[in-house]
């Protein structure tokens, strides 16, 4: 559209519409920036701290005077290496396994809830909601005793199992809600189009369900990844201790130095997978992929 062909009134109208649009988008920008600063300031602070030398830690400045990577060296190749790397390995392994199990179980469960009519459907949903509302801290002590007596204390399964109690309910709820939105007639449409039931499931239902499963998996992963209470209570050695718990065991380079720098560096490193995950699967997380399948 070229401006020359517009009458002055039209041009004025367009300008006004554009200005109104700009005003609303300015409003949005302001809100976005406020929220972003609010959320990201602590992260930025930790990031800045992670590059400070022990001497600068309490100098009251936000940015380090002469940034150094000594903290990263300390946890990746230095004294705390063993503590950190094994914790990182534990965190990754335990979170992934807990996520996988939760997603597989929750997918089956949510599929049944969305597709089938069976007695006790409501109960399954209610119970899983109740489980997720149970305060974690009240479970820790009995679990500690139980795990010690049956030999699960300080092992991977010893953490994976309680993590499932956190991740399963939310996974079931999200997936059930998601599956209920899938237009299941599509499966029939595919069969009429010449697909076997298996082909219909694979070519139509799986692609539609995938975003929901991805989203759920990421949520479940974060829950497991961020857990601290179970991590610190049910482990005692590097055999199973995850990063959030391990951070508490960092010591400074010498007894008289505070480990703040190392902890910050470790915190930044464990944040990276989270950011990466979100960026990688951003596309999959978008909702509304099923719109347009059926009318109305």
């Amino acid at each position, binding site marked *: 559209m070229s401006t020359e062909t517009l009458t002055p009134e039209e041009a004025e109208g367009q300008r006004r519409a554009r200005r109104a649009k700009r005003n609303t988008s300015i409003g949005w920008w302001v809100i976005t920036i406020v929220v972003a600063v609010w959320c990201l300031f602590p992260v930025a602070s930790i990031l800045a701290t992670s590059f400070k030398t022990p001497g600068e830690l309490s100098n009251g400045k936000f940015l380090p005077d002469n940034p150094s990577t000594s903290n990263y060296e300390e946890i990746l190749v230095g004294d705390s290496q063993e503590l950190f790397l094994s914790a990182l390995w534990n965190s990754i392994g335990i979170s992934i396994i807990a996520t996988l199990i939760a997603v597989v179980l929750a997918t089956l469960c949510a599929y049944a809830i969305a597709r089938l009519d069976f007695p006790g459907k409501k109960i399954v949903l209610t119970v899983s909601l109740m489980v997720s509302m149970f305060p974690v801290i009240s479970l820790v002590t009995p679990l500690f005793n139980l795990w010690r007596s049956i030999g699960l204390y300080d092992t991977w399964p010893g953490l994976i199992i309680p993590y499932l109690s956190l991740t399963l309910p939310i996974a079931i709820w999200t997936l059930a809600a998601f599956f209920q939105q899938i*237009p299941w*007639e*599509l499966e*029939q*449409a*595919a*069969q*009429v*189009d*010449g*697909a*076997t039931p298996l*082909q219909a499931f694979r*070519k*139509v239902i799986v*692609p*539609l369900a995938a975003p929901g499963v991805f989203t759920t998996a990421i949520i479940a992963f974060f829950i497991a990844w961020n857990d601290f209470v179970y991590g610190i209570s049910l482990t005692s050695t590097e055999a199973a201790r995850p990063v959030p718990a391990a951070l508490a065991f960092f010591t400074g380079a010498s007894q008289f130095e505070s480990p703040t720098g190392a902890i910050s560096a470790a915190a930044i490193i464990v944040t990276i997978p989270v950011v990466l995950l979100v960026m990688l699967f951003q596309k999959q997380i978008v909702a*509304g*992929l*099923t*719109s*347009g*399948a*059926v*009318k*109305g």
Partner: protein
Amino acid sequence: MASITLKNIVKKYDDGFPAVNNVSLDIADGEFVILVGPSGCGKSTLLRMIVGLEDITSGELQINGRRMNEAAPKDRNLAMVFQNYALYPHLTVYENIAFPLRLAKDANGGGSVDEKVQRAAKMLELTEHLDRKPANLSGGQRQRVAMGRAIVREADAFLFDEPLSNLDAKLRGQMRAEIAQLQRSLGVTSVYVTHDQTEAMTLGDRVAVLKKGILQQVASPRELYEQPVNLFVAGFIGSPSMNFLPATITEGSGGTVLSTPIGDIPIPADRAAVAQGKDLVLVGVRPEFFEDATLVDEAKMPKGSVFTAELSHLEWLGHEQYGYIEFEPDEKVRRLLSDLAADMDADELRPQVVTTLSAESRVRPGRPVELWVDTSRIHIFDPESGENLTRDAEAGAELTRMAAEERERELAAARERDAQKA
């Protein structure tokens, strides 16, 4: 190309609800059959049984003479346009249309996938939308995609489940014409569910009327309109619908007279003969059988008779006007009429007669007027069984035969056009 034969098809749902009851229907190769009936009468169920998405409780379904009851949907080679389109939201328009072809791969002979998709898209004017996702299309475009997915494959028959029900009136008219053309040019057997009168009358070679899972009548639209078998079909087909008047037959001095609440209408004795021995009958008179007596041609006059009535109100529409005559039925008739209305899923049948009069008529409501009614075309129904006592089966069959010949001619013409193009 295929013929579809339903033999005593019964469908009982798991909860015991008999949705379809003993339906037998022969659909010839290349024929366009419409299923109509009020909501919940089993149209979709019947269609879903044909396509294989619903088990058949008893009876036999044959496609091309082969029993197909147990065949999986994919083995029946039928294409269906679902009531809600059921497009694949994660695929582009192109891939939606190509979906059945990709599944069939080599099963479909001749021509590449791309060629076929492009041809279907061109026919449905979807070419410029091929790369878009269904979510971004308008209702009419989605509907065309659904059609494209059905026609792209060389299916033996098309099944349509109220494909136009969600479109606006204009688009519906346009799509109706397109479907009619498409069906004729492809010459594919089609079964089309609708509860739109116009679609039923204009599209179908034959129309099957269902009521509560029971097949009432299968005939050409003309036969249904002119020779309905019973009260239900008579009332269901036509808009505004047929008027039903309680009447007793009396032999007066001037011949046989139907005494109705709106006046005494003399009728030919042979028409009345069928109602011998019945003290009460229902007379079915279509609105257009009435006319302002002063405007009727001399030549036409003797085919009907004139009576005096009072119009309660009048609606002038430009090309014609509706005159309403109200009457007071007795309790028994009132119940009969409201039962009938419930069957047809219509609003309460008001005890009133709708008459279609010429636009130039100067009759005024609230005054006695002379109305002419074409008594040669009225029907007399048995109020108990609902049966049409005056139905002329032969004349009806003739109408349907004519429609069948017409179809043959159109199909032949379409084939010829194709041959010329090729």
